[in-house]
């Protein structure tokens, strides 16, 4: 029998038991829908994380003092006092892969403006900091190199600080107090938002010249961290190696001794985050895969019931000249039709679900066409795999027995 007639017969058989066909399809619909939605969500989350990491700065490396990695618990306080401004100057001068570097110290303080006050993170650094982090100004400008040299009482505030202290007035040019010291606001930064990688509100900060913070607030001459910009994303790993070698040399760390600093590469952080979301995607995808398998078993079950129910029909068909192949093709096509139709509905459901979830979570929508294509092929494969045995059973029926079947 030709394929078109067989397909017609198969579809008619499915329409004859609409409720049953839909219920059978449901397993595939849920399975395919889950896989598509989960992969879509996983990829959407990954893109979000990557975008957030990119907001930290371009080709950025992060040097921190002390035992920032490895020991874990020893982190805090900047337990080593060995990272100095001279190191950062040396890095800029001697590491070819490094474009710019900004030293940094950090403390926290209460900021007061007229009647309002707000506790925040105070970062002391140099003007390069804003370039390295590709951070633009909403209003005003950065402080200058001279301000750093003179330890001037000037500050740049983040969006969160501005919102809390200057909800309706212009901040630039205003006098604030950081702790007990009076400062002049020279610039307001544009909002960068929450950072997933550093799990902090990047805008909840106030940035002042390095020397001002060191001399007038912390009283500590060493650095807490430094931000370094590599010449390109691909060279950031090279830069990392160069910085490590230089700092170990400058700090006179013998071979075999652990670093007294840590260099984190933003590309590494991005890779870790992306690895994590990949694991999530695989995990969620396999849950969908399991439901697909269960859906396939449902098809097999219903097809076996259908073969038994239609034993007489099969007997008639064989008696009037259907070959084993004809009967097998008919039932196989029926199974494929169920699972493919279920797959198509599942794809639509999955795409719809990912749209809803990503719009509620505020993630970019990432419906991958590869996932859709694979889902369609997988549903056909499920139809063939789980339909084969029932179809085989139908084709092998003894026509005499089948015709006698009540």
């Amino acid at each position, binding site marked *: 029998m030709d394929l078109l007639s067989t397909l017609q017969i198969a579809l008619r058989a499915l329409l004859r038991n609409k409720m049953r066909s839909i219920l059978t399809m449901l397993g595939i619909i849920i399975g395919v829908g889950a896989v598509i939605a989960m992969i879509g969500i996983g990829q959407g989350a990954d893109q979000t994380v990557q975008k957030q990491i990119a907001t930290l700065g371009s080709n950025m490396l992060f040097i921190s003092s002390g035992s920032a990695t490895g020991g874990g618990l020893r982190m805090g306080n900047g337990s080593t006092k060995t990272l100095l401004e001279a190191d950062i100057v040396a890095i800029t001068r001697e590491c070819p892969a490094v474009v710019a570097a900004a030293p940094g110290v950090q403390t926290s303080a209460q900021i007061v403006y007229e009647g309002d006050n707000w506790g925040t993170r105070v970062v002391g650094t140099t003007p390069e900091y804003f370039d390295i982090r590709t951070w633009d100004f909403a209003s005003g400008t950065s402080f200058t190199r001279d301000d750093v040299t003179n330890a001037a009482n000037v500050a740049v505030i983040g969006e969160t600080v501005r919102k809390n202290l200057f909800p309706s007035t212009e901040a630039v040019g205003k006098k604030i107090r950081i702790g007990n010291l009076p400062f002049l606001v020279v610039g307001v930064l544009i909002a960068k938002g929450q950072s997933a990688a550093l799990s902090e509100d990047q805008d909840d900060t106030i940035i002042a010249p390095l020397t001002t913070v060191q001399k007038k607030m912390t009283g500590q001459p060493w650095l807490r961290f430094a931000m370094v910009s590599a010449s390109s994303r691909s060279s950031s790993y090279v830069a990392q190696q160069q910085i490590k070698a230089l700092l170990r040399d400058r700090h006179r760390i013998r071979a075999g001794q652990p670093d007294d600093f840590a260099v984190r590469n933003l590309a590494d952080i991005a890779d870790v985050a992306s690895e994590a979301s990949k694991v999530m995607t695989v995990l969620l995808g396999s849950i969908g895969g399991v439901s697909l398998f269960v859906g396939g078993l449902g098809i097999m079950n219903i097809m076996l019931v259908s073969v038994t129910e239609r034993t007489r029909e099969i007997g*008639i068909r064989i008696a*009037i*000249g*259907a*070959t084993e192949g004809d009967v097998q093709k008919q039932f196989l096509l029926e199974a494929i039709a169920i699972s493919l139709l279920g797959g198509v509905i599942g794809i639509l459901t999955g795409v719809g679900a990912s749209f809803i979830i990503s719009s509620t979570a505020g993630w970019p929508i990432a419906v991958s066409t590869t996932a859709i294509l694979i889902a369609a092929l997988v549903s056909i494969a499920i139809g063939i795999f789980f339909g084969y045995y029932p179809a085989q059973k139908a084709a092998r029926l003894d*026509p005499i027995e089948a015709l006698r079947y009540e």
Partner: protein
Amino acid sequence: MMETSVDAVASPVSGRHANESVLRVEELHKYYQMGDNKVHALRGVNVEINRGEFVAIMGASGSGKSTFMNILGCLDKPSAGRYLLEGIDVAGLDKTQLAGIRNRKIGFVFQGFNLLSRTTALENTELPTLYARLDKEERRARALESLRLVGLAERTDHFPSQLSGGQQQRVAIARALVNRPSILLADEPTGNLDSRTSVEVMEIFQTLNDQGLTIILVTHETDIANFARRSIVFRDGTIRRDEMIPRRSVAAELIKTMPTLED
């Protein structure tokens, strides 16, 4: 696959020569294994049926007539002996070739009609042409012609549930004829029908036979067997009697004497 005896003749049953062997069986045996028991259903059957014959096969249940029919219909294979259908030894054919024989050389009519439900008379009739891989127009034309032959040209779009028993059996006959078979095998075709409808069905058989179609009819009712020209009686797996029927009933005349049942 095999040469078809269907020629380009308009009528599905005409244009054939009498006194030419359509089927011949020689020393046919059939054993069944039923648990530990070996059942010997056919014990050496020899018979030859020529083209244009109308043979009634009779016998009590267990006489072997159903087994014989199943073998003639290529639904079952003999354990021993030869079965030649139009000169072809059926024992040497594989499953696909047997399906082809059932499709093109044999027309089946069953006691229970065995039509596909929720499928129209026309589609039911068309079914064997699908397996014969004829093209769409040819299929439609043959099915319509067959239905016309059994007097159901007006009922093509009816479902089996909308047809009377006699009409359903006529659809089944149309389906059996659609591929222009060499023989028509009818297994208790009147078993589910009232007496008037039975005679109507026999009238169709006699008409088809008069046009040259070979018909083999299995029945246990003597008055139905009397519509045939030759009767073969089975008992205990062998042919007990094989004779021509001297004064056969003519359905077309008999039906005039029967009252029309109105309800």
